[in-house]
C-alpha cells in the first residue's frame, strides 16, 4: 500500500502493552488516571494505523512472544480479520472514552479509567492472539473488567445484573477451557496454525467443538444463552453499556469465527455442516425473539439491549451458508464482518444516546419521553441515524451488511434465512420508530430536565455518523474484508 511512512515498530505488542501499562499507572496514581486514560485511548488509534499499514504490506504479521515461537511459546498474529475487530474497538473506545469523561463525576471517574484501560488492553490482546490458552487468559481479563464496569454504578439492579453476568461469563470461559485441554491433549499444541495442520476429526475434536462452541455462544449471548445480557447491559452506566454491546460480545464471537473458519469447518468428516445449521437456527431464533422482546420493552435501555440479542442473531446466519465444496461461504462472512463494524458503531451510538435521555429526564421510560426532539436535537439525530443502521435501511452500514448477507442467502436458495432477515428488519424498524415517535410528542406529565454536556451529545452523533458513512464507503472496506475471509465471488470485488 503506502511506502514506509511509519517506522517499523512492533505495533501488535505496543497495542497490548500501552493500555495495560496505562491501567497499572492509573491504579498507582489516581489523580493522573483521567489524562492517562484519554491519552492512551487516543494513542491506540495511532498504533492501529501503524499496524494497518504493516498488515497491508505483509498480509499476516506474526510476533513470537519471548522469542520462542510456537509450539513452545505464544505467538501474536495480526491480519485483516483481527484488524476489523481492532478498528471497531479503537473507534468505539475513543468515542466512549470522550463520552465517559463528561458522564462520570470527577471522583467516580478515577475508578473508571483503569477498568476501561484493562478492558481495552484485554480486547486488543484477544484480537491479536494466535494461541488457544492465551485466548482464555484474555477472555478472563476482559470478562472481569466488563463485570467490574457493569457493577460500577453500584445500584441494586447493576449489582445483580453484574453478578449474573459474572457467573455466566465464568461458566462460558471454563467450558471453553475444557475444550482447549482436549485439543492440547490430542495435538500437543495450542497454536492456531499448528492445530490446523495436526487436528484430525474424531471424538476429541467433536467434543472440543461442542464445548468451545457452547462456551463462546454463552459469552456471546446467542439465544437461548442471552438471559444474562438484558439485565447487565441495561443496568450498567451508559458508556459501559455501549462498550459491552458494541465490543465485549463481539470478542467471544471473534474467537468462534476463528475456530470455525480455520480449525473446524475445513476438518473433513467432522459433520461441521450440522453444527453450522444448529448455530444458524439459534441465530434465527435470536433475531425473532430479541426483536419481539425489544418491541415490547417499556424502557429505552432495555429495548436497546434486546436489540443487541437480535442483532447478534444476524452474525450467526453465516454459519449454515456453505460453498458448493462444503466450505464456509466467503461472501456470507464478508457480510458478517460488515455487520460487526456497523453494529458496533450504531449500537454504541444508541446506548450513548439513551444515556443522554436518562441524564436529561432522569428516566428512560419510552412513553414519558417529553418533546426531547426540540431540546436534545443532536441526541435524537444520533438515535435515529443509529436506529436506521440497526434496522438495515439504506444508506447505512447496517444496510450494506444485511444486503450482502441477504444476497449470499438468496444465491444458495436459503429462503428460511431470507424470510427471518426480512422479518427481523421489519421488527427492528418497528422498535426504532416506536422510540423515535415518542421523541416528538409531549408526555402527559412534564418534568424537570438536567442539562446534557455537549461532549456527550456529539460523541453519540459522531459514532452514528460513522455508522452512516460505513454505508457510503464500500469500495474502501471490501478489499480488507476479502483479505480477512478469503476472496469472495469475483464479480463482487470492485
Amino acid at each position, binding site marked *: 500500500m503506502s511506502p514506509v511512512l511509519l517506522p517499523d515498530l512492533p505495533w501488535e505488542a505496543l497495542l497490548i502493552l500501552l493500555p495495560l501499562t496505562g491501567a497499572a499507572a492509573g491504579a498507582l496514581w489516581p489523580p493522573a488516571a483521567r489524562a492517562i486514560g484519554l491519552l492512551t485511548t487516543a494513542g491506540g488509534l495511532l498504533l492501529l494505523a501503524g499496524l494497518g499499514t504493516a498488515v497491508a504490506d505483509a498480509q499476516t504479521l506474526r510476533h*513470537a512472544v519471548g522469542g520462542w515461537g510456537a509450539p513452545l511459546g505464544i505467538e501474536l498474529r495480526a491480519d485483516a480479520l483481527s484488524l476489523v475487530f481492532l478498528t471497531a474497538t479503537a473507534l468505539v473506545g475513543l468515542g466512549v472514552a470522550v463520552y465517559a469523561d463528561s458522564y462520570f463525576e470527577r471522583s467516580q471517574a478515577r475508578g473508571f479509567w483503569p477498568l476501561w484501560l484493562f478492558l481495552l488492553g484485554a480486547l486488543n490482546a484477544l484480537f491479536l492472539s494466535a494461541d488457544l490458552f492465551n485466548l482464555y487468559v484474555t477472555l478472563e481479563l476482559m470478562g472481569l473488567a466488563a463485570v*467490574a464496569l457493569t457493577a460500577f454504578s453500584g445500584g441494586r439492579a447493576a449489582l445483580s445484573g453484574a453478578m449474573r453476568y459474572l457467573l455466566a461469563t465464568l461458566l462460558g470461559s471454563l467450558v471453553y477451557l475444557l475444550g482447549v485441554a482436549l485439543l492440547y491433549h490430542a495435538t500437543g499444541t495450542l497454536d492456531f496454525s499448528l492445530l490446523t495442520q495436526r487436528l484430525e476429526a474424531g471424538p476429541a475434536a467433536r467434543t472440543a467443538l461442542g464445548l468451545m462452541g457452547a462456551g463462546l455462544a454463552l459469552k456471546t449471548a446467542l439465544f437461548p444463552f442471552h438471559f444474562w445480557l438484558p439485565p447487565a447491559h441495561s443496568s450498567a452506566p451508559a458508556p459501559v453499556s455501549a462498550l459491552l454491546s458494541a465490543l465485549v460480545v463481539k470478542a467471544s464471537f471473534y474467537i468462534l469465527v476463528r475456530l470455525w473458519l480455520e480449525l473446524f469447518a475445513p476438518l473433513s468428516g467432522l459433520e461441521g455442516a450440522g453444527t453450522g445449521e444448529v448455530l444458524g437456527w439459534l441465530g434465527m431464533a435470536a433475531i425473532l425473539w430479541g426483536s419481539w422482546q425489544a418491541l415490547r420493552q417499556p424502557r429505552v435501555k432495555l429495548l436497546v439491549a434486546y436489540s443487541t440479542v437480535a442483532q447478534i442473531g444476524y452474525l450467526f446466519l453465516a454459519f449454515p451458508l456453505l460453498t458448493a465444496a462444503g466450505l464456509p461461504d466467503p461472501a456470507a462472512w464478508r457480510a458478517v464482518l460488515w455487520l460487526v463494524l456497523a453494529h458496533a458503531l450504531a449500537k454504541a451510538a444508541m446506548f450513548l444516546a439513551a444515556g443522554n435521555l436518562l441524564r436529561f429526564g432522569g428516566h428512560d421510560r419510552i412513553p414519558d419521553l417529553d418533546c426531547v426532539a426540540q431540546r436534545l436535537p443532536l441526541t435524537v439525530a444520533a438515535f435515529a441515524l443509529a436506529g436506521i443502521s440497526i434496522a438495515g435501511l439504506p444508506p447505512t452500514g447496517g444496510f450494506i451488511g444485511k444486503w450482502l448477507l441477504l444476497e449470499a442467502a438468496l444465491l444458495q436458495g436459503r429462503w428460511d434465512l431470507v424470510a427471518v432477515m426480512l422479518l427481523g428488519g421489519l421488527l427492528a424498524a418497528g422498535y426504532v420508530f416506536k422510540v423515535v415517535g415518542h421523541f416528538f410528542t409531549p408526555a402527559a406529565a412534564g418534568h424537570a430536565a438536567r442539562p446534557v454536556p455537549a461532549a456527550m451529545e456529539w460523541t453519540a452523533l459522531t459514532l452514528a455518523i460513522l455508522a452512516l458513512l460505513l454505508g457510503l464507503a464500500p469500495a474502501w472496506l471490501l478489499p480488507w474484508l476479502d483479505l480477512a475471509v478469503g476472496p469472495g465471488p469475483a464479480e463482487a470485488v470492485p
Partner: protein
Amino acid sequence: MSLLQTGIDALLALGLVWLAWRALACPDLFRGIVLFIAFGLLMALAWVRLEAPDVALAEAAIGAGLTGALLLAALARLNRIAPAGTRADTREAWRNAPALLLVLAGAGLGLAVLSLLPEPAGLQAQVAAELGRSGVSNPVTAVLLNFRGYDTLLEVLVLLLALLAAWSLEAEPPRREAAPGPVLDLLLRLLLPVLVLAAAYLLWAGAHAPGGAFQAGAVLGAAGVLALLAGWRLQPHLTGLPLRLAIVIGPGGFLLVAWALLLTGRPLLEYPPALAGALILLIETLATLSIAATLAVLFQGSRPAAEPPA
C-alpha cells in the same frame, strides 16, 4: 501400581465427588464453605498423586486456604447485611437444575476423555530441550515465567484488576474487631515469622524446585490475613500511595521489564539468556509482594480507612 495406591486413589476420587456434592447441596453457607476448603485440601492431595507438586502447592495455598478465607470474609459481611433467615434458599438453584442435561453432558465428556490417547502429545520434550536457555531449572517456572511468560503477565494483571473491581464497589466502613484472644496472639507470634520465612523459601526455591511467586505470595498473604484477624492495621500514613505501590509493583514491574526489552529491539518479553535467571527472580519477587498485599487487602474487603473515598 500397588493395591494400596489404587485404594488411596479410589478414596480420593470418591471423596472429591462426595465433598463437591455436599458443598453444593448443603443449605448452610458456612458449612458449604468449610466443605469447599476440605475439597481444596483433598484436591491438593490428588495433584500430588498426579505428580504435579507445583499445582498441589498452589491448590493448597490459594484454592483451599486463601479462597476459603475470602469466602468466609464475604459470608461475614453478607450476614451483617442480610441475616441468614432473610436470604433465598441456596438450594433453589439446584431444584431447577436440568439434571438430565448435566448427566448427558457429563457422559459425553467421559466418552471423549476415554477416546483420548493414553499418552498425551505434550510439549515436555521441547521444554526439556530449551530448559538450559530459560534461566531456571524448574520446568514449571520456565513455562510460567519464560516460555509462556506473557500469559503470566496477564494473570498477574487479572489479580490487580480483581482488587480494583472490589474497590470500585461501594466501600463499607471497616469493622471494629475485638482484641485478639491470648491464643490467637500467641499463635501469631509463633506463626508470622515462620510464614514469612516459608514464603521467602518458596520464592527462592521456585527456580529449581516446586514453588514460585504465586505460592510464595499466597503464603505471605496468609500471614497478612492472620495479622488482620488479630486486629493489626496498616498505619494511616501507609494506606495511600505506599499501599498502592505494593499492590501495583508486581504487575507494574513485569510491564516495565516488557517495555525495557521491547525498547532494546527484542520481541515482547524475550529475555537475553544471560540475564534470564536474574530477570525471572526480579519479576517473581515483585509479584510475590503484590500478590500477598492484594490477597490481604481483598480479605479486608473495603479500601483501607485513610484512603480518600475516590
